């Protein structure tokens, strides 16, 4: 994978008024105004759909941090969605409904798991790394199937959403939507600050040429591991939101093909671009939804579309809009 010569160009494009920026701004404004549309028309389905879009976009943002900026193609990212979700589900079943307990536990559990997987898989690179993260992700899937007390294969229904003592009512659809939107924007800002910090420069340097980074004295393994853990924790947070959204967790949400969906979102939007994952998540989920309304066999079209993207559209949609170019 080739990278642009000047890494500082990666995060922000040079000009403010470009097609790409206008497009991103339009998408964000549309997302911000969506609940108003839903209230005006009484169409709650669109709100439910887009809440899911926002949550998976947070997952995609976290994957983009390691995959786009760090060059680590992790194929087990859905595991964190599952761990975050199961933390909420298991605590709720055991009678702990407070979000102030559930959410930190979910994030900590995801971070710990990412630490273990990262410490093992970052010893390798390239295809090995893809396969190992894939295998560990699938391990968690089987562990969840084995959890008989928590539903096993059938999954676990969550009867009460996380309780924040009346400050934020997650049962209100509009409130929940805006919470997800706020967390998405916050995570994008967080990634922006992170990749432009000294830490982020080391991560991006390691993607371009790890040997050179080590030669000038950076312990790149530790930096990459830290980045991997941060991404895992962020995706665990998305998992808590997803569990609260669907009121249900099941092993199926961690199946490796769900990790594939997240990879598709990031690659479709544009690798290593701040808003790419959001555009990718919106595009992918709308494409899925639209095609399944159009035909009984949506993946007959979606599959070849992904193949064409892989062959021809390497910069993703961001690249198409002229945001940035990548070999």
């Amino acid at each position, binding site marked *: 994978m080739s990278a642009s010569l000047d890494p500082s160009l990666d995060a922000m494009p040079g000009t403010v008024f470009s097609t790409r920026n206008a497009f991103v701004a339009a998408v964000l404004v549309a997302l911000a105004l969506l609940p108003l549309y839903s209230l005006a028309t009484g169409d709650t389905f669109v709100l439910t759909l887009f809440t899911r879009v926002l949550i998976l976009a947070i997952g995609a943002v976290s994957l983009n941090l390691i995959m786009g900026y760090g060059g680590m193609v992790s194929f087990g990212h859905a595991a964190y969605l599952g761990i975050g979700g199961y933390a909420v589900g298991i605590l709720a079943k055991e009678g702990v409904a407070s979000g102030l307990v559930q959410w930190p536990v979910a994030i900590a559990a995801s971070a710990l798991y990412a630490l273990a997987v990262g410490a093992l898989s970052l010893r390798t690179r390239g295809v090995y790394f893809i396969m190992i993260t894939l295998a560990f992700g699938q391990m968690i899937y*089987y562990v969840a199937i084995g959890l008989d007390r928590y539903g096993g294969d059938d999954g676990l229904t969550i009867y009460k959403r996380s309780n924040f003592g009346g400050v934020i009512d997650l049962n209100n659809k509009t409130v929940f939507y805006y919470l997800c939107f706020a967390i998405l924007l916050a995570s994008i800002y967080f990634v922006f600050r992170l990749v432009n910090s000294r830490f982020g420069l080391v991560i991006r340097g390691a993607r371009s040429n790890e040997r050179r980074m080590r030669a000038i004295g950076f312990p790149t393994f530790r930096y990459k591991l830290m980045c991997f853990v941060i991404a895992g924790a962020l995706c665990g947070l998305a998992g808590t939101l997803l569990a609260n959204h669907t009121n249900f967790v099941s092993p199926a949400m961690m199946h490796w093909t769900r990790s*594939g969906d997240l*990879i598709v979102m990031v690659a479709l939007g544009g690798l290593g671009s701040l808003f790419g994952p959001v555009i990718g998540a919106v595009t992918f989920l709308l494409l899925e939804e639209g095609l399944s309304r159009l035909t009984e*066999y949506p*993946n007959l079209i979606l*599959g070849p579309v992904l*193949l064409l*993207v892989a062959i021809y559209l*390497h910069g993703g949609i961001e690249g198409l809009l002229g945001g940035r170019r990548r070999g």
Partner: protein
Amino acid sequence: MLYFIEQCLNGVQLGMLLFLLAAGLTLVFGIMDLVNLAHGSLYMLGAYFAATFAVLTGSFVLAVILAVLGSFIVGMVLEVVAIRRLYETDHLNHVLGTFGLLLFFNELVRLIWGPAGLTLTLPTQMLTAVQIIPGVYYPIYRLVIILATLAVAGLLYVVVMRSRLGMLIRAGASNREMVGALGVNIKLLYTLVFGLGAALAGFAGVMQAPILTVQIGMGENILILAFVVIIIGGIGSIRGAFVAAIIVGLIDTVGRAFLPDLLHRVLSTNAAQTLGPSLSSMLIYMLMATILVFRPEGLFPAASR
């Protein structure tokens, strides 16, 4: 003890199956440097072909031959139409493109054969069990799987190590440009190798078809096991894949059969029941993690990499 022998044989049988899948994957990776997530789809297609041809021809043996041939042809067509265009891109795009193919094949199967699964009934003479050692009866068909796979593994060894095609394959794995420069039609070689991998995957699917339900997505979970085999064995090494496949098959099968009992002796019944199923499915991944700590390149790293 007798139960243990039976479980070991089941483990070997799973191992042989994993070898068929892993050999195709590692061959394609070693030579074309391609990560193929649609490999499991070829396994699924093999099983569907076998079930269909068995009904059409009424002969099990003929169904096996036609299904393997069908997978070989599908593999080559797939390579020419789509896979070929992915070689020049990076691994992420391989993953993305072949993931798209996986979605496509699942849907195609649903369109052609419908959402319900198929079953493949064996000829009656394969349904009985034989006494392999005094007191141990084992289903004939499972023995057939082990022997047929061993034969295929032997054949693969001969082809790769002793034939002209195998020489080109090995040369292609160590230096593709040079092989091309020496006047070998490298495009044709790639198509053949991909077809060979597809045929191996299809054969695995055919062999499994009478034991499992032939259904959509049947190749997805076993594909990951094949990846675990490749990681343990070393990428690009067929010998490593063989050894690792048998280890993984044995540990997974025997672990699932005996670990819950072992836990019962150590822990309380309640804890053992909770932990048992999860822990036994984690065993092979723990093995993989251990190997990664001590030998990150796998047990038998291919010499050229």
